[in-house]
């Protein structure tokens, strides 16, 4: 691939696209009081205030929520997929960690 690394830049060297410089934010919506916030997606915004407003417009236009959290994506530390083996596989054969050996009364729901 021999891409021209230095294309002729116009003399007026203004940034071509400010929007690409906006940081990415993760959006969490609480669908109703009493429930937890859930991750619904991400968006771009210049700062936290704008992220909240954008989230309101992008993710709650069909009454999806009563509360919004936003957090800049770069502040999230994620596990490394390469470590999946050592992180998650040891749990596979430990079925006794699931509370499935109890008889639950029928009246109990959502468990």
């Amino acid at each position, binding site marked *: 691939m021999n891409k021209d690394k230095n294309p002729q830049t116009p003399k007026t060297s203004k940034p071509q696209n400010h929007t690409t410089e*906006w940081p990415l934010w993760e959006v969490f919506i609480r669908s109703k009081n009493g429930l937890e916030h859930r991750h619904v997606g991400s*968006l771009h915004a210049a700062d936290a205030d*704008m992220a909240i*407003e*954008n989230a309101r417009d992008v993710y709650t236009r069909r009454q999806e929520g009563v509360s919004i959290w936003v957090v800049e994506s770069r502040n999230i530390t994620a596990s490394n997929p390469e470590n999946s083996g050592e992180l998650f596989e040891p749990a596979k054969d430990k079925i006794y960690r699931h509370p499935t050996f109890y008889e639950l009364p029928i009246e109990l729901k959502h468990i």
Partner: protein
Amino acid sequence: MDQDLYKYLLILGDNSMILGHRLSELCGHGPTLETDIALTNISLDLFGQVRSYYQYAAKIKGEESTEDSIAFLRTERQYYNCILVEQENTNFAHVIVRQFLFDAQHQLLLESLTQSQDETIAAIAQKSLKESKYHLRFSSEWVKRLGDGTEESHQKTQEAVEHLYPFAHELVTNTSIETRMNEKGIGTNLDDLKEEYYKTVIDVFEEVGLVAKDLKNRFAKGKSGQHTERLGYILGELQYMQRAYPNMQW
């Protein structure tokens, strides 16, 4: 038919109709996905309000009148929107400044109309007020961001202010119909909104160093049916289907 009330409803509804159309032109063309959706949401809010006004107007006009015939079968002179809202989407700064100048008046107007003696108008105002508060929040925040952003964004916003601000006075100037409707306890006396309107607008402008000279375009008489050529183009697109295929339905 109560001619004054009918026209007053059009004065109230037509601003939202034409501004809603202008914003709908941006659908899919917004500067970012997020602002595109925000502007389209505002457009839909405005169309929702328009329907309420036009449905009421159709009831007053009677005959075969419907909300659709009011929206699609009037000519330029029968539209009573302010000149401000028919201005082009020249660039994002123009879109935002136009929206801000409108929203600042719209919120005050709706607040006042919730006290209208006409129950239907009061109910429409009550329902629209929350939407309009959010619109003002959105547009005023963006005026500040653009005014306080880069040198380029400041300059473009300043140009937008210079172009659009001279039309703002029409939003807070009574026509004879508005005066009569106020005397009946139905309409708002726009004189009462003036001081707060200009304060809201100028405070935001000054916060970010935008200069609004005290200029008033004396040809801004949209509420009397005198428009710029821009409205013709808008109606050409807006009304094409009903003109080409009369009584067409979905």
